[in-house]
């Protein structure tokens, strides 16, 4: 019984966390991209334009929820939620402090990789139910891309299972050693790149591609349902950043107590910023290059990392 209550509580907490992260993340991304493109970014509302996202949220909530005439109404309505819910779920297995993760499970690593895979179905259904060529192409592209990049992404975190001898994130955080950082450098690069690709963010935003597919699978969405897609994107960014910061950099082992949590938040923000930086710096990839990178570059890199760690483990 208490398990169910806690499940609801942590589910809501994850939703609120993503909402806050999206509010701050959108503002930060607009400021950051503005700096890259030598402009100012939002500046009218609040200090340094901080309230701009809040005002945009009010606008999005009040906007008419347009449903295309030929759309499959039921599927069109629930598709954003199928995209969002798994990403919120994946946040509960992340260790937020030494010895604390909302859902402490022995299959945490696998859970973090497997549950967001469900959101691919939401993306495809969104593209499909719109009955729109742009949206359909976006949906098919998203499915191909997300399936391909799941493989290197999962392989890139497997070295932790070898090193810590456990799939429980808390065990990995507890077993963390400083020399894991140089040892797992290749794995970290693979994790970062494939996470960006898994989120359909630039330079891997072919499913959305505003200049060729308008907005891809969510071209027909507006108002609050469009906002849920955006929240899912920023939620995924948040999840990739906090999970990467907690596992690859071991902030809780470097600094004890509350200082470790502060370091963890800073590291997560830095990782999220690096992922935004990539979006605003690199041009969009071609579809054939995209598949080539996943199968011919990232997957072999992840396998090399696995072999490397496999060679080190017996000497520990």
């Amino acid at each position: 019984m208490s398990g169910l209550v806690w499940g609801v509580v942590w589910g809501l907490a994850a939703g609120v966390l993503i909402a806050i992260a999206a509010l701050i993340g959108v503002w930060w991304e607009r400021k950051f991209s503005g700096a890259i493109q030598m402009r100012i970014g939002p500046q009218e509302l609040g200090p340094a334009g901080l309230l701009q996202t809040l005002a945009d949220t009010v606008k999005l909530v009040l906007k008419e929820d347009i449903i295309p005439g030929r759309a499959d109404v039921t599927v069109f309505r629930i598709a954003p939620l199928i995209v969002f819910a798994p990403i919120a779920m994946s946040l509960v297995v992340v260790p937020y402090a030494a010895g604390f993760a909302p859902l402490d499970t022995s299959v945490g690593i696998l859970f973090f990789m497997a549950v967001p895979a469900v959101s691919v179905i939401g993306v495809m259904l969104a593209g499909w139910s719109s009955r729109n060529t742009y949206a359909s192409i976006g949906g098919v592209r998203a499915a191909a891309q997300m399936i391909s990049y799941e493989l290197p992404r999962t392989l890139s975190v497997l070295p932790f299972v070898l090193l810590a001898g456990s799939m429980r994130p808390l065990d990995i955080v507890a077993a963390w050693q400083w020399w894991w950082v140089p040892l797992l450098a290749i794995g970290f690069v693979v994790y970062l790149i494939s996470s960006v690709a898994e989120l359909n963010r630039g330079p891997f935003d072919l499913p959305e591609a505003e200049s060729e597919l308008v907005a891809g699978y969510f071209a027909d969405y507006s108002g609050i349902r469009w906002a849920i897609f955006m929240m899912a994107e920023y939620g995924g960014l948040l999840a990739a950043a906090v999970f990467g910061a907690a596992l690859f950099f071991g902030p809780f082992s470097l600094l004890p107590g509350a200082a470790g949590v502060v370091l963890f938040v800073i590291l997560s923000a830095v990782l999220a910023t690096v992922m935004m930086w990539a979006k605003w710096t690199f041009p969009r990839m071609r579809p054939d290059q995209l598949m080539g990178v996943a199968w011919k570059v990232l997957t072999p890199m992840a396998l090399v990392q696995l072999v490397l760690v496999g060679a080190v483990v017996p000497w520990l």
Partner: protein
Amino acid sequence: MSIESVVFAILAGVALAGGIVTVFARDVTRMVIGLAAFLLSIAGFFVYWKASFLGVVQLFVYVGGVLVLFVFAIMLVHRSTEGSPYLETRHDIASITVAGGLFIMVVTALKDFVHDPVAGAMVTGTDEVAAVLLGPMLTHFEMVGVMLLAVLVAVVIIVGGEER
């Protein structure tokens, strides 16, 4: 009625409803949602029986992998604007025979576990699964791996074997 049995009833209801929708829906998107609900509730059953590893793998392989590839194939073969693809079958009797035979086979295989709760209490934790798979069952495990590799190579030869 304990909370556990309520959860079980919900899972069983979702699984049944998903299965019925998958078979009887006219629109292919509804079928996909039905199948997704069915596969998700199977993952729920694994978690319910404390086999969390199997539950997550079910989610990863079937919902995130097989189902998506399935939808992918339908989307590429049929234009999305058509709405419903051609899903008629002329093999009703053969399908019923195969499905019935499979059902009888599964029931006969699982009969002993239902009657004998001790045999039903299988290994469930991740460590136990790993110890069994990489211990006494290692040969079977490797053989399945080799078989899957052979299947992959065969698919590549069949699909992409043509000379350009």
